[in-house]
C-alpha cells in the first residue's frame, strides 16, 4: 500500500534538511512548530546538536495560535529573543502545522523584517517532503540572501556544496576533505560543515564548486549563473565508500543519495567496465545526472520487488534495509545514509569498511530474519 511502512521508519523530513544546511551559520533557527518537530530534529536528525550549544528554538505554537493564525505572536517572540541573543540572522523553518493553516512565508518574512534588525530567511518546509527538498530550499535561500558582490577568484580555492550530516553521514568528512585538498595545495571550503557565513559571503571567490549532494545542485547553478563559478558533481571521499571485490560480470544495486550513488558507480566501473550498475534512491533523482537504468524508490514494496526481481549480486545500501529482503543471497555492503537510518559513520563502521576492502575478507551479507 502506498505510504505504508512496515520495515523502515520514516526518512528525514524536509525541515530537518533545512536545519542541517543552516545549522552552523550562527543564526537563530526557529522551528515553526508546537515542540515535537524541534525535538525530532534535535534529538534525532541533527547529530551536531549534542556536541555544541546552538540557537535552535521551537516557536512553541499552541492550538489557538494555529486556529487563529497568530503569526504576530511568533514575530513578537522572535523579536524578543533577538534582543537577548547574539545572532547573524534569523531563519524560520516550516512544519506541518503552518502547512495546514496555510501560513504565508513571504508575509511572515516581511512582518519579521519590520520588527527585527537582522536578515530573515524563511524556508517553507512542511514535514511531508523529504530532507533533500528542505536542503535544496535552504541552500538557495542561504546563497540568495548572503552571497555578496562578485569577488576576484582565488586560485585553488574550491567550494564544496551539499555537505550536511544528512547527505554525508559522517561528521568528520569535511575535515578529511580539507586535509586532502590541502595536501594538493588547495583550499576546500565546505559550506555548512566547518566553514561559516563569511565564506558564503565570499562564495564568488572560489575557483569552482564541487556538488556533493543533489540537493545542492540548484545552488551550484545559481552560483554559476550569478558569478560564473563552474561546478562539478562528485564526492571527493568516494574511495572510502568502495568495497574492494571482484566486480567483473556482476550486477550491482546502489541505494543512496544520487551523487554518492553515481560516484560509487563511477569507481566500480573504473575497476570493472563490464559491470551493470543501477543507482536507486529514495530521494531526488536529478534528470541531468540520471541514467536510463536508474530508479526512484517511493515505497518499501518498490525496493523489495527490485531486489527480488533484479538478480543483483551486490547491494550497496543502508544496513537498516537488509531486513527487508531476507532472501537476498548476494553481498550487502553497508553504506550508511543518515537520512534513512539516523545512523552516522562511526569509528567501528569505518573499521568494518576497511576490513571489507581487504580481498578475501568480504563480509557476508547482513541478512536479518524478520
Amino acid at each position, binding site marked *: 500500500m502506498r505510504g505504508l511502512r512496515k520495515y523502515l521508519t520514516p526518512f528525514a523530513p524536509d525541515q530537518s534538511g533545512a536545519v542541517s544546511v543552516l545549522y552552523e551559520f550562527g543564526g537563530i533557527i526557529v522551528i515553526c512548530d508546537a515542540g515535537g518537530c524541534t525535538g525530532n530534529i534535535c534529538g534525532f536528525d541533527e547529530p551536531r546538536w549534542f556536541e555544541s550549544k546552538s540557537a535552535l528554538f521551537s516557536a512553541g505554537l*499552541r492550538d489557538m495560535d494555529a486556529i487563529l493564525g497568530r503569526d504576530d505572536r511568533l514575530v513578537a517572540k522572535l523579536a524578543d529573543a533577538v534582543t537577548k541573543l547574539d545572532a547573524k540572522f534569523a531563519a524560520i523553518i516550516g512544519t506541518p502545522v503552518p502547512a495546514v493553516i496555510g501560513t504565508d512565508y513571504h508575509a511572515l518574512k516581511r512582518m519579521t523584517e519590520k520588527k527585527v534588525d537582522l536578515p530573515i530567511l524563511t524556508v517553507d518546509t512542511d514535514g511531508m517532503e523529504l530532507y533533500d527538498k528542505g536542503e535544496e530550499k535552504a541552500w538557495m535561500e542561504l546563497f540568495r540572501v548572503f552571497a555578496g558582490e562578485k569577488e576576484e577568484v582565488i586560485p585553488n580555492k574550491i567550494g564544496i556544496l551539499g555537505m550536511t550530516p544528512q547527505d554525508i553521514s559522517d561528521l568528520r568528512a569535511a575535515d578529511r576533505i580539507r586535509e586532502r585538498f590541502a595536501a594538493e595545495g588547495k583550499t576546500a571550503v565546505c559550506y555548512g560543515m566547518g566553514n561559516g557565513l563569511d565564506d558564503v559571503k565570499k562564495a564568488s571567490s572560489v575557483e569552482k564548486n564541487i556538488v556533493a549532494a543533489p540537493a545542492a545542485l540548484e545552488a551550484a547553478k545559481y552560483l554559476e549563473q550569478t558569478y560564473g563559478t563552474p561546478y562539478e558533481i562528485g564526492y571527493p571521499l568516494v574511495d572510502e565508500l568502495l568495497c574492494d571485490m571482484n566486480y567483473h560480470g556482476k550486477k550491482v544495486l546502489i541505494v543512496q543519495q544520487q551523487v554518492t550513488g553515481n560516484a560509487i558507480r563511477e569507481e566500480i566501473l573504473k575497476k570493472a567496465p563490464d559491470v551493470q550498475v543501477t543507482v536507486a534512491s529514495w530521494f531526488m533523482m536529478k534528470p541531468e545526472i540520471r541514467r536510463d537504468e536508474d530508479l526512484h524508490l517511493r515505497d518499501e514494496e518498490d525496493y523489495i520487488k527490485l531486489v527480488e526481481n533484479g538478480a543483483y549480486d551486490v547491494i550497496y545500501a543502508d544496513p537498516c534495509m537488509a531486513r527487508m529482503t531476507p532472501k537476498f543471497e548476494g553481498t550487502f555492503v553497508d553504506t550508511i545514509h543518515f537520512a534513512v537510518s539516523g545512523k552516522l559513520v562511526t569509528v567501528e563502521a569505518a573499521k568494518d569498511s576497511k576490513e571489507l576492502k581487504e580481498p578475501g575478507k568480504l563480509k557476508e551479507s547482513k541478512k536479518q530474519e524478520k
Partner: protein
Amino acid sequence: MRQEAYFCTVKELNELGKDKIPQQLISHTHLIYSSPATLAFNSPGAEGFGVKRAGLAVPDSIMLIVSPGCCGRNTSVLSSMRAYHDRFYYLLMDETDIVTGRHLKKIPKAVAEICEELEKKPSVVMICITCVDALLGTDMERVCHKVEEYTGIPVRPCYMYALTREGRKPPMVHVRQSIYSLLEPKKKKGNVVNLLGYFSPLVDDCELYDLLHGAGIKTIHEISRCRDYAEYQTMSEANFNLVLHPEARFAAEDFHDRLKIPYIELRRLYQIDKIASQYRAFGAALGVEFDDEMPRKAAEDVVVKFKEVHPDAAFAVGEWMNGDPFELALALVRYGFHVPEIYGTLSGENFIYVKQLAQISPETKVFSNLEPTMLYYDGSQSGVNLTIGKDAGYYHKECPNVRWNEERQPYGYAGVRRLFESLAEV
C-alpha cells in the same frame, strides 16, 4: 548585550505570587530553547515514555502512526529497543491527504495488511495521530470504530497532539485514558487494587506494596507488570485505584464512570514527614493504620548518614527526573542541605513549594530550561557541587550527577532512601 541566563529567586517569586510569574518562566510566552536539557519536553517520544511508547503499554499491542513523515522519524530510537521491535508501523501522509482526508480511508486496509503478516494477532491496534489531524478535526473515534468493524481487532486512538500540550487534556493525559479504555466490566474483588500513573513499575522494594498487603490487599496490578492481555483485563476486578501521577486522574475518572471503580490520589514526595502524613491519611480512608515505621526509619537513616559524609552538599535540582523539582528542593533544604539552583517549570500546583522555600532558602535561583537565554547559562559561580536530574547534569558537567530518571519508578520512603543511596555513590 548581556549574555546571561534569566533567573528569579524564590523570594522574588513568592513576592510576585503565582498570578504574576515572570513571562520568562512561562513557556508559551517566548521561543522555546532547545538543548539536551529540554529534549524530553520538546520531544516526549524521544526519551522516556512519550505518547508512542505509552500507547503500547497494553500487552501484545501494536501501533500505526498516521502522520507526516516527520512525526514518526525519531521512532526508530524506540524501534531499536527489543520490547518495541515490530510494534510500530507508519502510514505516511502527503499534502493531498491533508486536503482530501483520503488517508483516513486507507487506515482499515493498512491495519488489515499489517495484521495479516503478523504471526500473532495483536491484542489492540493503537492508531496514533498528530497535530495535523488535530487541526483537520479528524473524528478518530469513528475511524477506529470502522477499523474494528473491518478487521475484527480492537482499535483505539492515541492523540499525539503537541499543540494541546498545555490544554485541559494534554496528550499524556489522553493516552492514559486510551490504554485503560479496553477494560471490560468484571465482578469486583475486595482484595485487588490498581496502581495508575506510570508506564513502568514502582521499584520492587517500595514499601507501598507491603503496606497494601498489610491492609489485606492480595493483588496489586500495574499495567507494566501485566504479562499478557488476559492479565491486563483483570485490572477491571479492582476494588479501587491508586493514582500516583496527576496525569492519570482522567483515566481514574473513566474507571469510576465506566467500571465503577473509585480512586484515591497519592503524590510522589521526598519530604519524609509529608510521606508519613500522606500514608496516615490514606490509611484513614481505608480504615486501617499502616505500620510504616521501618521503611521510614530506613529513609531517615540514609539521609542522616549522607549528611554526615556530605555536610556541605549544594544541589542543583533539575526537572528531568522522577520528582517535582520544587518539592525535592524543599525536601533537601529541610534536611539541611543547600540548594542554589532549580531548573523547572512553574505552575500554580507547585507554587506551594516556592512559598515554603522562600521562608527557608530565599536566595535559591529558579531557571526555566526552556527560556532562550539559557543558551548562555554559566554555572561556574553557582556554588553547586552535586546535581540531580539529567538537565542539571547537563548544565554542571563538572559536578557529580544523579540522573534519577530511571524507568523503575521511585516512590515513598523507598524513593528517598534510594535517592540518597545513589547520591552517596557518585
